């Protein structure tokens, strides 16, 4: 569905090119296969802080990444997860060389532009981001508390991608340089170019701009300690109006068996108006003020989650029982053929909608890189869709039975300050490292 060619430069850089000539527009997208999972203890937040530094300038563009590309009509951004860091720009066709040149310059020559002053200012920006997006946002610390509780302290998913404030404050510009040396090099990157380009011409350009960047050191995969599966109950007081329950179940990693089955299951259980719990808890009985579910797929292991906000006066235990009962029903009787048919149409449609944009988060270039980095094959799009189209009722039953039983659930109650009585009984206070 996304025709492409894949090339590997002498220094190990993988390049995926997709031609689409509908508009004079080009998307440039780079994934580095490094995220917060690669951070050393005491250095949490470094991968994300480093992503910020990548926009501050490199040796030959010392004034930063935004001005030249915005002036050229481009839009651009980047993001960091536990597993990877991505950078994208979307530019008018005439600025293709500029966008590639900018990426090459920071892939090869970032360090000379990395000053202590820049590092320290950007650290303050990130601390502001943390306070704005998490600490000062209702329920904003819930996932931090859950990660710390579910993953042992030496597991790479134990700490939040944005980092602990104490680690961020202790980090130095030398840590950032070392991080760049270790992880930011061609053999740990994948470059996707989508849009109004000619493959042979753009590959000549790529070779000229990226070809001389030295290959970096070989990388070790992060160690992955086992995730203990045991029921737990936690509580967190927050500046919120209504108590909310998070039920989390450790589940199979991204693109492994049952990952897509659980994604479909999440939609069936509590995602959107067509889900089972929306009908019972929200529409019919009005016990919940909000509902959601998801298979949070990640490279080293996932978390299946159901999140329910209580309507005023409703106890979280009632919501917990309703969720577990619904999962039990799914395990016993499975989804109906109508539910599965709807899931198939929605999968087909959502994969088609994903072909609408060249760039940005989730655009075609980003998808090609995601598939290339996680599966080694940019063509995984079709197989990915196929995973959803072939989900059967028996698959859902098996996955629910295997992964979503009460004995596997970590429950977090987030309650208004000073109102612990709204939490599930016997919950222990959650730890959020600051």
């Amino acid at each position, binding site marked *: 569905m996304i025709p492409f060619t894949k090339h590997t430069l002498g220094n190990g850089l993988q390049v995926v090119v997709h031609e689409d000539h509908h508009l004079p527009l080009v998307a440039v997208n780079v994934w580095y296969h490094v995220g917060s999972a690669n951070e050393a203890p005491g250095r949490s937040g470094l991968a994300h802080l480093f992503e910020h530094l990548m926009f501050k300038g490199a040796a030959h563009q010392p004034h930063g990444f*935004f001005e030249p590309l915005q002036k*050229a*009509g481009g839009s651009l951004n980047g993001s960091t997860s536990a597993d990877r860091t991505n950078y994208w720009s979307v530019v008018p066709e005439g600025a293709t060389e500029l966008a590639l040149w900018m990426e090459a310059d920071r892939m*090869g020559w970032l360090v*000379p532009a990395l000053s202590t002053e820049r590092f320290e200012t950007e650290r303050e920006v990130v601390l502001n981001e943390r306070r704005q997006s998490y600490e000062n946002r209702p329920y904003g610390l819930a996932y931090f508390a859950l990660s710390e509780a579910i993953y042992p302290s030496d597991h790479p998913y134990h700490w939040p991608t944005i980092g602990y404030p104490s680690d961020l404050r202790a980090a130095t510009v030398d840590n950032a340089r070392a991080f760049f040396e270790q992880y930011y090099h061609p053999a740990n990157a994948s470059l996707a170019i989508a849009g109004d380009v000619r493959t042979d011409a753009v590959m000549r350009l790529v070779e000229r701009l990226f070809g001389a960047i030295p290959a970096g050191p070989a990388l070790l995969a992060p160690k992955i300690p086992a995730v203990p599966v045991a029921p737990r109950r936690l509580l967190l007081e927050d500046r919120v109006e209504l108590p909310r329950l998070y039920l989390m179940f450790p589940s199979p990693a991204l693109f492994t068996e049952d990952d897509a089955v659980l994604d479909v299951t999440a939609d069936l259980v509590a995602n959107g108006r067509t889900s089972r719990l929306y009908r019972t808890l929200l529409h019919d009985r009005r016990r919940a003020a909000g509902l959601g579910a998801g298979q949070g797929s990640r490279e080293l292991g996932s978390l299946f989650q159901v999140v329910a906000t209580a309507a005023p006066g409703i106890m979280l235990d009632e919501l917990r029982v309703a969720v577990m009962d619904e999962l039990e029903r799914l395990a016993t009787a499975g989804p109906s053929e109508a539910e599965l048919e709807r899931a198939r149409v929605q999968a087909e449609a959502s994969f088609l909608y994903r072909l609408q944009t060249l760039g940005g988060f989730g655009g075609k270039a980003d998808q090609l890189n995601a598939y290339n980095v996680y599966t080694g094959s940019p063509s995984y799009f079709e197989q990915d869709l196929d995973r959803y189209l072939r989900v059967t009722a028996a698959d859902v039953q098996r996955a629910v039975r295997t992964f979503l039983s009460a004995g596997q659930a970590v429950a977090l109650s987030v309650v208004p300050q000073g109102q612990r009585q709204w939490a599930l009984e016997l919950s222990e206070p959650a730890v959020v490292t600051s």
Partner: protein
Amino acid sequence: MGSGTFRAGGGDLVTDDRRFVMPAAGAPAHVTFPPMVRATLSSGARVWTIHHDTIPVVTIALVVSVGSACDPAAAPGLAGVVADLLDEGTDRFDAIGLAEAFASLGSELSIDVGPDTTTFTLTTLTRFMERALALLGDVMTRPRLHESDLERVREMRLNRLRQVRSSASAVADRAFLSAAFGAHPYGHGTLGTSAALARVSIDDVRAFHAAAMRPLGATLIIAGAVAAQDAIEAAERQLGGWQASAAVSLFAPVPAAMSSGLARVIVVDRPGAPQTEVNVGHLGPARNVDEYHALVTLNALLGGQFSSRINLNLREARGLTYGARTAFDFRVRSGTFSCETNVQGDATPLVVSEIFKEFEAVGGSRPAETDELERAKSSITRGFVRQFETSEQLAHAAARLATFELSADIFDRFVPEVEAVTPEAVSAAARRHIRPDDAIVVVVGDASTWREQLAALDRPVEDAEIEF
């Protein structure tokens, strides 16, 4: 360039001069807005189609020119309640059944209530277009509007109102809108207030619905991989019979807003909050303002994007925030201009005073420099092509034409109009439309650390309880 460059620890590189010189941005990409085919359905509704043939997908947007500004004074939020009730069921479906029907087309209906319009949008596969139009026809012409559905919608909206109270940005937005517009119909958002919501009856809903959801003045936009004639014929089959249930629309035209004239500091105290949400601004012009293109350019220069003055100052130079942005919120009859940011608590007074300095400077001591202006203009004109990628982007662009009753050549005139903006025009626009003396300052955060310093702003400081 090129000398002295190195990759630390990576050994020497042979420098290649050409490789180290930043390439130019290249020639701008010229695009024109795809032609629209226009027709009128026998119901009186307009239908506009836009052919966009990349993948077999169609976006349908129906714009009805009634929004939250039409809420009765005693019932802020009523337009939003009516919109919520429209997809709670039709003669054929209950709320869940309707959602399932859209889902089985790979689609979902979203209803957006703005100040001036209500817009129904859905994207579906081309092969389901007519079935999607049929469902939209049900929603528009045969909604149930049952009492029991109202009770559910009321409860869900009350819960929502209760939850947004703990969001600093929602509190600040509400405080700002209400201070800037006062009792004007633009002075409240679509959620309304709990007190008003508690009073709404099903008769209120039905009366508002009859007056608001009328084919005359409504615009149905169909953008995507479908031939104009096929789209228009399908629209006629499915929405041609839509009839108004009241003879005349009861809404008085929204007047232009008058400044409440009270520049002030509004403090919403949140003891213990680690950040402060800051909004600084005042009333602004309507969309049909003569200087529209100068204002768009001015905004890009001052605060509309990452590389604008205010973000470079507050984030890039000082590290006081994750981001700061300015915007003109253009509405049909008036608007606002404001700067919004979220900053570390102890930096609140400094940030507010820097925002004032930037507001003053751009119309006075530091007018737009030539280079800076060229950068702002070229980011807008060269970036214009990015707005033509998806059927949804095109449908929403056309929806803006409908909302503001703009002429269809507006998109093709946009780039030359921005290119023609002069430094003098930007300065004049700044002096007229950015007025620090009139500015309202909304600060939501832990006031104990900065309340006294805000007295230096030379305008009254008042503590506010924001009604939700």
